[in-house]
């Protein structure tokens, strides 16, 4: 029947449907143009650089570009249990000679040394031979190189060169998990006493988890109190939550440094009430205790505010109804009130957890050696060791974790439901 209905026309004689679609499209473009400046800005200055981090973290083109002839020749090296054929040696010699001319041979030695210990020595030997023009290009290069050092006769070292051939590597990611590619190409774990990164990941998770837990147990009662008190009192108490929220992070960290130091107020108080002796003041800063206490206080407002905004919407008559139907106050709370606050709990916990997992400043100042987190390690590699690709790899591993949590958050609460104050 619909096909028989006459098309409705606008005054211009265009079918209404077409005209409407045109207007809709115009509105779409208009809306998009408003968003475009910020979107473009963020994509260029922020999203692409994160992609750049990924490129840096897997980039391993240095050796690939330095030894083109070697890798070309290695394609013909079939029996990997024996030393490579003459062509590989010749290719390597020619590449290396070029690097010596460009004075880049040192970089190659260091890079190969990372792949297999002992490379630096033998490339230096080769360098000296080349400098003194000791190598005769008209006869077998393989024999001459093999004579320089016994390690050149070890197939392991040639396999190590071969492993650096692909322009991309996952080595930095493996290193971030305390693993490495062994000489036979399998993934192995580093020695137990050198597994520093795994400790850091676990500690980061542990601290983020407990800070979230502490914030929850402290934030829930006060959010409840704020939501149920009459407005004039709750507004006053809200200041206790909002003032720290608006105060500089460094100021709050500084105040914890003063409170927790050995001659600080907290220790004074402990001595005064006789909990500890004056000469036996416990160290509360530069360890995990300091990190826990300071981070909990700093992140607590992020727990209280979402909880408060959810609790505010719960009508007090629901609790009264629960009680009037025979529930004790505990039952009424547990069966009626608590389930209604779950969206707030989810939002608060995930917000605090996400913030805690990437924390940097507070652990660096009050954490000491045993309180540092993965972020501190990233900053260390960015600023001190200048191993930017490793810092990028660890940053992206952390980011992946955060995005997974963010995705869960989005499923549970919805990103648009984030409320500020």
């Amino acid at each position, binding site marked *: 029947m619909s096909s028989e209905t006459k098309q409705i026309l606008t005054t211009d004689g265009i079918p209404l449907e077409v005209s409407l679609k045109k207007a*809709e499209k115009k509105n*779409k473009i*208009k*809306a*998009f143009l*408003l968003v*475009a*400046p*910020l979107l473009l*800005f*963020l*994509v260029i*200055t*922020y*999203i692409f*650089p*994160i992609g*750049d*981090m990924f490129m*840096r973290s897997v980039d391993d083109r240095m050796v690939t570009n330095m030894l083109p002839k070697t890798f070309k020749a290695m394609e013909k090296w079939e029996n990997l249990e024996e030393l490579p054929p003459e062509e590989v040696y010749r290719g390597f010699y020619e590449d290396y000679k070029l690097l010596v001319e460009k004075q880049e041979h040192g970089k190659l030695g260091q890079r190969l040394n990372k792949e297999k210990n002992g490379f630096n020595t033998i490339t230096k030997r080769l360098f000296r031979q080349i400098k003194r023009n000791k190598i005769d290009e008209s006869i077998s290069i393989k024999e001459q190189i093999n004579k320089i050092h016994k390690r050149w006769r070890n197939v392991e070292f040639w396999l190590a060169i071969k492993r650096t051939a692909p322009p991309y590597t996952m080595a930095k990611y493996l290193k971030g998990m305390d693993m490495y590619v062994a000489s036979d190409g399998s993934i192995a774990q580093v020695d137990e006493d050198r597994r520093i990164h795994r400790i850091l990941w676990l500690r980061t998770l542990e601290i983020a988890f407990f800070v979230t837990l502490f914030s929850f147990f402290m*934030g829930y009662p006060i959010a409840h109190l704020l939501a*149920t008190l009459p407005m004039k009192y709750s507004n006053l*108490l809200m200041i*206790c939550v909002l*003032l*720290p929220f608006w*105060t*500089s992070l*460094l*100021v*709050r960290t500084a*105040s914890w*440094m*003063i*409170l927790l*130091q050995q001659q*600080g107020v907290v220790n*004074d108080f402990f001595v005064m009430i006789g909990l500890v002796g004056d000469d036996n003041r416990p160290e509360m800063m530069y360890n995990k205790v300091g990190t826990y206490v300071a981070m909990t*206080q700093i992140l*607590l*407002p992020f727990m209280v505010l979402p909880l408060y905004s959810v609790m505010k919407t719960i009508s007090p008559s629901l609790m009264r109804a629960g009680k009037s139907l025979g529930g004790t106050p505990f039952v009424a709370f547990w069966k009626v009130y608590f389930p209604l606050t779950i969206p707030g709990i989810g939002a608060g916990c995930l917000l605090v957890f996400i913030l805690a*997992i*990437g*924390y940097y*400043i507070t652990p660096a*100042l009050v954490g000491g050696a045993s309180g540092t987190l993965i*972020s501190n390690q*990233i900053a260390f590699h*960015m600023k001190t060791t200048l191993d*930017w690709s490793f*810092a990028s790899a660890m*940053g992206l591993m*952390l*980011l992946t974790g*955060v995005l997974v949590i*963010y995705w869960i958050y989005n499923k549970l609460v919805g*990103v*648009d439901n*984030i409320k*500020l104050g």
Partner: protein
Amino acid sequence: MALPSYTETRYRIWHYIYLTICTFVFFFLIAPLFVIFPLSFNAEEFLVFSEGMKNLDPDAFSLRWYKDMIYGTKNPWGLAAKNSFIIAIFATIGSIILGTLAALGLSSRHMPYKGLIMATLISPMIVPLIISGVAIFFFMAKAGLAATHTGIVLAHIILGTPFVVITVTATLSGFDHSVTRAAASLGSNPVNTFMKITLPLILPGVISGGLFAFVTSFDEVVVVLFLAGLENTTIPIQMWTGLREQLSPTILAVATCLILLSTLILISAELLRRRSERLRGINR
């Protein structure tokens, strides 16, 4: 929160335990801030309460650290404060303009891929700062903007816009679009309508988003640590170096000033929030 007279004793006890816990938590939240005030007036060089201070001896208090903060020789705080304010003001303006425009677009019901775009726009708020710092540093280094004010301002715009987008979108969610249609039907062009009708109505949201952006920039240290050179030092950077190296009471004088500033910002944010709720017709 007075209990009804018929409450049983055990619930009465529970209620007092609950109130005690709440008091403790509020104390835990707010008390650390107040340690800083008295110590910043310390006449001595140590960051502990001296005997004189405990006995309220007037000689134990002085303004020397405030004087040091303002007049001290080779003192970095003047330059740091100047830089901090310049950077924060420009970053706030940038965030407000870009963020408000984007929020206007996002609130339109014609906006395609709304969820994805919203997620992208507020991602700088979710991504850990250290990662943002690394990424932004790579960009600024390539663009030749590392160790310049421009670079830091741009970085802070990235970090500040999510707050503006969120607050303005929230304000717009209660916005009655028929008023703009009414303006259009009365012959007003879109720019005029925005300036005379929309902007005054969403202004509280814009300003409170701007306050967030300002505080974010003013307090930001992780990204600046990667970007700043000696010339671009800011208050947070000076505090960071101070807290790591020589913990001097001058830092506490600065911290006191910062607490006063945040109190001011808190008051303005609260006033704005109430005004915004009144304008949107939300009465509690």
